């Protein structure tokens, strides 16, 4: 399609759109004619012959497939925290509440996969997002900035789209590295930021999808991936003005540009995936907190909170420690030998954290359903587990019926054949299949079982 190149004012009046101006025409036309100084120079300074609809569409289609996965796994992580017990943060989300359901305990690796995918994909997509933004950056400096109300509104949604993805990436990356320099609540910001981004993302996909299809069809992928640098030519001028007006010679082929972004993604994947793996490969997460084991031996696996940080003192966990079980007006007190004298069950279960790391260990202890029966609540509706910790967002956690009754749900006393280390929750901790790590309460002091009849 013939497209007239920018006129003297640097404004790209596209011949295809009649004149493309909405009402009031005089205003938009006037705006186009009053370009600030420098617009021409900026327009001519875009040199890369690679920018164009095809390359943008390639990066865009990767994001189109992968970002929904990040969004869905993120929402599932929220659901895993148990919003029905007001323990998913932020708690008060109004219309943006998710449908209530009991988070399943099977498969036991469910949460390991959802949070692992969310964090790992989120990191791996960073170069794709940067590549996509690079490919459309000239649009930011277009003059006129809009030719109609439609373009003004769409540009506003693009601000939400770009701000949204960058905000989510920045807060997510800082959170998994325990850096809270932003000074606001991570959960609140990341949850609401996700909704702003998702809305803008859906609209962008709907508006641009036909463009994406046309662009991908314009140059067969196979041919493009066989074209060397020497044969790389700019795309023909496009209605969106992505193709440079005065492109320079190619220093990289399109294949190279795709490979560069793919290589960046691969590099990040290689130094990130280790935090979700056990064994020697864990060490490959070179730049992340959970690439390092905190020690050797049966208790040498990562923690999310040290005993020192939790403020649990040794005299609280010595022989004087007692576990209190409450249920239906009854109170039962048990010491550690008493718990060890009960039927012991061993289960291989992963412990996974929303910050993207997980590890599978062998836990031994008393089944939670046996403790519920001991407390006189054979048919529990919920159980509130409290820790010896005095403060902290996760000093108590509520478990749903399926999480109490699963045969592998334990009050663990031992791990990998030895007593739990203080950092892993000695004298006793909860471990439930597919439950977020922060709800697997450590240094347990009390479990309050509620029966179905208690409401």
């Amino acid at each position, binding site marked *: 399609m013939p497209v007239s190149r920018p006129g003297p004012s640097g404004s790209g009046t596209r011949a295809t759109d009649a004149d493309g101006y909405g009402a009031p025409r005089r205003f938009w036309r006037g705006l186009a004619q009053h370009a600030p100084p420098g617009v021409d120079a900026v327009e001519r300074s875009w040199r890369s012959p690679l920018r164009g609809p095809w390359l943008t569409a390639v990066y865009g289609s990767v994001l189109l497939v992968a970002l929904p996965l990040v969004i869905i796994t993120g929402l599932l992580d929220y659901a895993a925290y148990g919003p029905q017990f007001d323990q998913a943060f932020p708690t008060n989300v109004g219309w943006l509440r998710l449908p209530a359901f009991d988070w399943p305990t099977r498969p036991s690796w469910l949460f390991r996969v959802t949070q692992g995918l969310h964090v790992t994909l989120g990191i791996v997509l960073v170069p794709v997002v940067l590549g996509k933004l690079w490919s459309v950056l000239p649009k930011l400096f277009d003059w006129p900035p809009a030719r*109609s109300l439609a373009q003004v509104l769409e540009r506003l949604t693009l601000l939400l789209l770009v701000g949204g993805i960058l905000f989510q990436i920045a807060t997510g990356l800082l959170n998994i590295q325990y850096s809270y320099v932003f000074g606001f609540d991570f959960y609140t910001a990341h949850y609401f930021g996700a909704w702003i981004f998702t*809305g803008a993302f859906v609209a962008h996909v709907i508006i641009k999808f036909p463009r994406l299809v046309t662009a991908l069809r314009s140059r067969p992928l196979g041919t493009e991936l066989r074209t060397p640098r020497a044969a790389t030519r700019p795309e023909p001028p496009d209605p969106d003005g992505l193709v440079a007006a005065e492109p320079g010679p190619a*220093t990289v082929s399109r294949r190279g540009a795709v490979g560069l972004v793919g290589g960046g993604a691969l590099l990040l994947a290689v130094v990130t995936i280790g935090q979700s793996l056990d064994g020697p490969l864990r060490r490959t997460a070179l730049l992340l907190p959970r690439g390092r084991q905190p020690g050797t031996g049966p208790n040498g696996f990562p923690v999310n909170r040290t005993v020192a940080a939790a403020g649990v003192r040794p005299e609280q966990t010595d022989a004087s420690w007692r576990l209190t079980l409450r249920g239906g007006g009854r109170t039962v007190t048990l010491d550690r030998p008493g718990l060890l004298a009960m039927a012991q069950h061993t289960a291989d279960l992963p412990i996974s954290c929303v910050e993207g790391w997980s590890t599978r260990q062998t836990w031994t202890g008393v089944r939670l359903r046996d403790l519920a029966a001991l407390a006189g609540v054979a048919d529990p509706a919920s159980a509130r587990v409290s820790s010896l910790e005095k403060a902290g967002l996760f000093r108590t956690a509520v478990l749903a019926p399926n999480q109490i009754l699963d045969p592998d749900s334990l009050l663990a006393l031992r791990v990998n054949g030895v007593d739990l280390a203080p950092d892993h929750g000695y004298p006793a901790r909860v471990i439930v299949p597919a439950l977020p790590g922060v709800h697997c309460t450590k240094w347990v002091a009390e479990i309050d079982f509620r029966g179905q009849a208690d409401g």
Partner: protein
Amino acid sequence: MAERAGPTAGRDRPTAGRAGRLRAAYGAAPWHLVLVTAVIVLAGWVALRLAQEATFGRMLLWFVGAVIAHDLVLFPVYASADRVLRAVVRDRVTLLNHLRVPALGTALLFVVYSPGILRWGETTHEAATGQTQRPYLVRWLVLSAALFLLSGATYGLRAALGRRGSASRARR
């Protein structure tokens, strides 16, 4: 997208006329208006909700700041760095790319893992993991050096093979 009024559009002129007028005045099809309005309303509703938070100003600053930091700081910085590099190596494109690739890898690792590399959050990191953030800087430097070394070695190999190739061609 709304169809253009063709010769056959005459029969239902009133509808086409109204839709056409709306399209011309607004600048896109009506569904476009519905869609972008929905997105803006959603974002506005979230903003109003968050406005009650004491830290709302900071959130807004980070949201808008992220766009400015990328579009008006990060992009100009890497684009200028690339121009400088191109001016230095002139028309040796292979050398240029053998410098670009490890430089981009180094920068990417820094952007993603800077909180650990710069030790932002020593206390929270230690409370969570029981470990310090000290090793990350050295590891990033070693990884970066490895990327440059690998790229340099491949460049050397390519150059050597290229020379041998042209020498054998010359002999023939």
